[in-house]
């Protein structure tokens, strides 16, 4: 499914509902909420991708903002920020200038600074499956 756009042209908001499976490249403008499954690639120049708890993405993501509450297998490049909440399961490398992670989230992959900076010299490496457990940090 190439050239997929949001189903609400006025607001620029799109949604892939639960039970819907999309395979291929998905291009959207402002915002896309995923409750279903997507395999392939998700792209937006500056839009926000919201992967909800039932959402299952097996694709590379190249967007402005990426909010993850569901499952994501693939690399993420976000020009503005990435938010990973406690119900999220992420496998893949993340490139972003701003990263928010909630305790309990599962994250496996490397995190590097956004491409806006010329060189990715400083990186946080999360070895293996690092779970930010609830017992860590603020209790």
């Amino acid at each position: 499914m190439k050239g997929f756009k949001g189903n609400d042209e006025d607001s620029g908001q799109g949604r892939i509902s639960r039970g819907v499976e999309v395979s291929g490249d998905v291009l959207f403008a402002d915002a896309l909420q995923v409750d279903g499954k997507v395999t392939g690639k998700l792209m937006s120049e500056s839009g926000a991708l919201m992967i909800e708890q039932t959402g299952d993405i097996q694709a590379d993501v190249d967007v402005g903002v990426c909010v993850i509450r569901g499952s994501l297998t693939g690399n993420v490049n976000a020009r503005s920020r990435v938010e990973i909440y406690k119900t999220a399961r992420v496998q893949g490398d993340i490139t972003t200038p701003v990263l928010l992670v909630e305790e309990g989230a599962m994250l496996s992959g490397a995190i590097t600074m956004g491409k806006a900076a010329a060189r990715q010299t400083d990186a946080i490496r999360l070895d293996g499956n690092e779970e930010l457990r609830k017992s860590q940090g603020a209790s």
Partner: protein
Amino acid sequence: MKVFWRQTTPASWLQRLGSALNVFRATAKRLTPRETKSTRREEGSASLSQTQALKIAGYSLVLMDPDGQVIWTREWDSGGVFEFGPRQRLWVFCGFTNHSKRETEISEYEIELMGEDGLVVERFGDSFGDSVIIPPGESKNFPAEWRM
């Protein structure tokens, strides 16, 4: 004398001592401040004392030379307002590229989080033991981490 002797039996003294210790423990417990999450601090990260979520709209990088003078600053949009709340960690990576024709010497930096009104709501600062020299055309990344 008989009464006095009765009151000062070893068992009686132990009872009194036990009571006094209980009073002391109770007083000490009230006076000793509890460890809160705001007092915990991990190396390389800043703990916030707020328990309410912060609304973040942007962030900025401030670079300072060895004299503490601000030599460069820049603001970025966070791509819309987002909330940073309890049990969350936030990393912000800022980059600087020396576009001048001279070397830039940096000894410390600050990364500031800004709210919707543009005011600074949190600040992370770090300094280098020795100044960092950035040659013309070169770049350096500056990270910051908060946990709430």
